[in-house]
């Protein structure tokens, strides 16, 4: 029986003592029995999961900063409470990803300071266009993020839906909340802002570039 355990391939324990089971060094038990991300079986899987988690973390961080920028301008207006509510949900998302990253020893993207500033500037500048501008920004960003989460869900489902059940659950939940934000934005006259089409596409292009870069850097 012990043999069988030892014949397993190098497994990275959730508590991340990177240790080959063959080497007979005791695996550290994860203090939390429930772990969202399964232990990667090889370095390829680890890379893939790392990339997914890194870009999701960067995305939530950016969204956080965007809402912060919007609040800085519109915080005291009528839409303040609405934006605050959406911001609180994003904070929860970010916290969840922080936990996942720490647990799985994933390197956060090196561009975080850049997303910090860029997100805030984006949020603040669109909010200066008024409430409709802020809503348009929300719609564009949330649509990008939802698309991105959807493609991740597709990728994970293609690979092995059972293995990634918990992770898929988390991503699906977050995607649903982002879609809610998107719909909220539309309800609150996002489309009435002048240059809506241009603004929306410009922001989405920026988001796509940000996602591409955060996966790699």
């Amino acid at each position, binding site marked *: 029986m012990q043999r069988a355990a030892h014949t397993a391939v190098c497994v990275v324990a959730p508590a991340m003592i990177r240790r080959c089971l063959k080497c007979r060094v005791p695996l550290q038990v994860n203090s939390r029995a429930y772990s969202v991300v399964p232990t990667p079986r090889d370095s390829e899987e680890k890379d893939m999961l790392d990339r997914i988690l890194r870009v999701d973390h960067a995305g939530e961080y950016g969204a956080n900063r965007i809402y912060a920028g919007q609040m800085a301008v519109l915080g005291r207006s009528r839409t303040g409470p609405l934006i605050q509510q959406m911001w609180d949900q994003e904070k929860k998302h970010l916290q969840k990803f922080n936990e996942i990253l720490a647990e799985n020893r994933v*390197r956060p993207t090196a561009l975080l300071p850049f997303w910090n500033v860029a997100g805030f500037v984006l949020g603040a500048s669109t909010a200066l266009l008024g409430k409709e501008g802020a809503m348009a920004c929300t719609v564009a960003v949330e649509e990008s993020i939802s698309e991105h989460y959807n493609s991740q869900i597709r990728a994970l489902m293609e690979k092995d839906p059972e293995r990634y059940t918990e992770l898929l659950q988390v991503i699906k939940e977050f995607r649903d909340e982002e879609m809610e934000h998107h719909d909220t934005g539309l309800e609150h006259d996002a489309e009435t802002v002048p240059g809506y089409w241009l603004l929306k596409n410009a922001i989405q292009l920026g988001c796509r570039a940000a996602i591409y870069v955060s996966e790699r850097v």
Partner: protein
Amino acid sequence: MAALLRGVRAGRALRGLSSVVAAPTATTPQCSSLSRGFHRAAPRLQDDFKSDKPPPSSSSTTFHEHYQAHSAEQDNTATASHEGAAAEQASRPNTSYQDQSGEQGEEYETEEQLQARILTAALEFVPLHGWSMEAIASGAETLGLSSASTGMFNNGAGDLVLHFITQCNSQLTEILAEQHKQVQLGQAEPKATADFLRDAVETRLRMYIPYIESWPQAMSILLLPHNIPDSLKHLSTLVDDIWYYAGDRSTDMNWYTKRAALTGIYNTTELVMLQDSSPDFEDTWNFLDNRIQDVVNMASTAKQVQSTGEAVVQGLMGAAFTLKNLTGLNQRR
């Protein structure tokens, strides 16, 4: 038959590693066992080229390479020699076409594991021959292989140095994991971060002491352009491990600044150690202490600057608000 061989090998292992080509298979004369070893080495070499999907645990992923040294070490103490199918614990599915015939269902050793064993054996010749192919050749000979098996090592001395580094990193990770477990079980007190870092770096650098004479040569080998990616990778893994066990769970820029700081500390301390002639390298450990103190001071200074900055901003906002009041701009008419 397999079980008998394994039992015999275990017995031999207990009697010590020196008699590599030993009596228990007494009927087998030495030269034929050598040639068997060769024949076994040859299909294994072809193995790597021919099997398009190598068995998972012999895949050349960085994960596994990282721990080859350690598993090789274990294997070394468990198996006295290469002859017979090596007593590797992993019974991987035998997907290679070459080895199906000769092995009779016994576990076989991959080329990586064989290389790891040779390199581990070569380490004891480093004080004599330096980090070089001679050391590897001597190591191969103690295992009963011909010194021509150094042909397996395309990177020569670089392979030896990288193998040693990997081994040291695994040992350190083990020690840190053990300490971590002790703390979690409540059997030991958690150390302060500065102390933890100091102990971890000291433990790691002490592993170089037996080879300190030739370590400058090793460092220059690591600085060769084709070795730099690997050595950087090992360094970053080392620093990441140390910080993880020190309790760092940051997910922002701190992740980078902490690791950069520790890398700097580690590298400079290593350099100091090279030219340290004090008893038991006291000067090096003092230097290490001072550098860690510097970093700790810098971190607390940064925090102070930040809070001072915030206080100043608050003050300015307050002043601006007061001014607005005084000039009556705040009133609605």
